[in-house]
């Protein structure tokens, strides 16, 4: 216990300095300031997942802007979708979207989610995320950097 405290004191604050808050406000007005996010891997190579993990880590700390990862779409306000939507995941993604209560938002993370990226026209791919469910915020990059993900999530909360 003592060594843990020592570690905390010695390490100090590691979080990146905050950028100015987004000018346009929250993407979904009712979510003002707080969004519970459910992550859906619709067929990603897991590159985006690694970056999402660090976006919610101590350095980028996306939670300070009012976003939080939750374990079920029933708890969520928004979906964080990665990867091109594969045939197997098209229907589950649609059902996940239906399971989120209104009002809801969808964030497409990475180039694959936006326009299928390198997997465009592959036989197992059903399409981009916007072909399956309506998308509110897009974050580009292959994979996007954690600070870009944080920036996108801040558009959701407006903080």
């Amino acid at each position, binding site marked *: 216990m003592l060594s843990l405290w020592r570690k905390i004191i010695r390490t100090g604050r590691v979080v990146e300095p905050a950028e100015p808050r987004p000018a346009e406000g929250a993407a979904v007005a009712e979510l003002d300031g707080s969004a519970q996010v459910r992550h859906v891997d619709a067929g990603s190579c897991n590159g985006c997942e690694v970056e999402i993990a660090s976006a919610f880590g101590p350095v980028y700390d996306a939670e300070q802007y009012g976003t939080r990862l939750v374990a079920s779409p029933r708890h969520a306000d928004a979906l964080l979708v990665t990867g091109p939507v594969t045939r197997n995941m098209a229907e*589950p993604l649609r059902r996940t979207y239906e399971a989120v209560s209104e009002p809801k938002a969808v964030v497409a993370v990475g180039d694959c989610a936006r326009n299928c990226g390198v997997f465009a026209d592959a036989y197992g791919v059903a399409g981009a995320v916007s072909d399956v469910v309506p998308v509110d915020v897009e974050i580009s990059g292959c994979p996007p950097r954690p600070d870009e993900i944080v920036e996108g999530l801040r558009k959701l909360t407006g903080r």
Partner: protein
Amino acid sequence: MNIAEFALGGAIFVGVSAALIAVAAPSGPRPIVAGLGTALTGALGVTAGSGVLAGQRVSVARPDVLPLFGTSFELDSLGAVFIIVIGGVAVAAGVYGIAYAPNGVRSRTTQSMLPLFVVSMLLVPMAASVGTLFLCWELMAATSLVLVLTEHRRPEVLVAGQWYAVMTHLGFFLAMIGLFLFAASAAGDTFAELRDAGPSLSPTVSGLIFVLMLAGFGSKAGIVPLHAWLPRAHPEAPSHVSALMSAAMVNLGIYGIVRVGFDLFGGGPQWWWLLAITLGAISAVYGILQAAVNTDLKRLLGYSTTENMGLVLVAVGAAGLFASQGNDVLAALALTAAFLHVVNHSAFKTLLFLAAGSLLHATGTRDLDELGGLRKTMPVTTATFGWGALAASALPPGTAFVSEWLLLQSLIHGLPPQGVADAIVLPVTVAAVALTAGLSIATFVKAFGIGFLARPRSVMAERATESPFPMLVAISIAGLTSGMLALMPSAALPATGDVATALLDADAAVAGTVHLRLVGASGMLSPLMLTVTLIVAAAITVAAVRTLAARRRRVGARLWDCGAGPMPARTEYTATSFAEPLQRVFDDVVQPDHNVDVDHYEESRYLVRTIEYRRRVPDRIEASLYGPIVAAVAWFGRVATRLAPGSIHRYLGYGFYTVCGALILLVLQR
């Protein structure tokens, strides 16, 4: 001739003639004859018992029936309680038997044995001499053995029959040595003579007799470690026979212990009863623990019988302990609890076994992991089993709750203890009884929730249809009886209480009609008011939720199944998974066997073709205690064949040398 004598004579006559007619009748009406005969025998038994409790006397002595010791029957109030229980169970089992006649159960042997079994059980509590008791006892053992072996073509039934035959005769043998020792010391074999001689026997002899009796009768009651036959034989018998055995026959073990301990010896030293309490507490906890981890429904119920008989033995032991300390009020309370639990257990166990039989009849399986989803297809069976599960789980408004409450009251009021042994045994017993109650809730939630609710886990469960009408009537009779005992235990209490006080020469320990009040100790309980309160509270809660929730708009939504659904029945909770945490907690006691077989594709060890998981929960006491004995007997059986090589000369030689040996012994003894 009074009503009781007339009814008893009628019961024996009806039972025997039903057996004879069943032998002669063609296979179609045979179950009807046997079933009706059994039910009528039971009803007459109940009448006789009630008559005796109302003050009538039954006494028959026929010295000419059996050579050397003759037969004598006398029914007192203690025997009457047990006769009423047996009769009541027989009524339900008989009505059930009219319709419960799958292949094999229809046979002449089975159908004619059923009424005979009931008659022999009715005779046991009436026996008034050692010889008569053993005659009836053996008749009961033999008829029940034949009934257990009904479906003798299945190998597991044969094994169960062997266990039952060996253990029941082992118990018979021990009890017989004990009682013959008693009769020899008393120089007479009627109970009246034994009663006179009992208190004056030397402590060593009476202690030896009591231990032998405890082992002998305890094995009939399924007391650990002599319980091994019970969870084997009860599941394999046809269900109405299981009900008769589990709800009526095992009680006679308790009857024997009470008869010898309280009636013939008139109480005994403290260590007898501490021994009884210890054995009872171990049986209760071990029985319910095995029931909790078992997935075979009827086996589970069999282990639950061991548990309940353990609780009864605890109560009997506590009564003896308090009586030996001169605390007659508590002794009467404990003995009343014991009798009431015998009655209650018989009611709900009959219900549970009959409902389990209905389930088996409809689905063909007893494995809880393959059942479920029966609420719509078998509504009556589901409702009655649900009530039975509540009745068995020591929660208000269940049936077992009242008697376990009385038992706990007597144990708690026994504190502060007198002496070191008490100080250890009594608090531990209170804890054991509480643990038993908790585990029994888990067990019966499992049995009912997994067995009947959710969605069907197999095709058999999906195709189930409700059982025929007479079976449902029988289940309902048992259900109504146990419901009445739960709500108005005062209906059964004066009778059981009077028997207890008569045995102990004490004042009544429990009084009241709607409220049960303990006399001589503080404590009050009103099952009826408790139930009414529970129902009202539930109704208010439901009404409140309805009115409050109705204000909001309701939204229909798809069940969240991770988007992959619909979920198959395989994803449901099973009996095995439900019991897994318990099994893990009690790992050291239960010691389950696990076996995981993983089958790979030939191309790569990373590609799994099938995974097979097998779990078995063997009875550890059985394995470690009986394993060596069985092995030794088998060894002796192999070796002993050398004694009989087939040579006639050698056999004649054996006879010659034995006679010589006997003569030498006689000469030496003179």
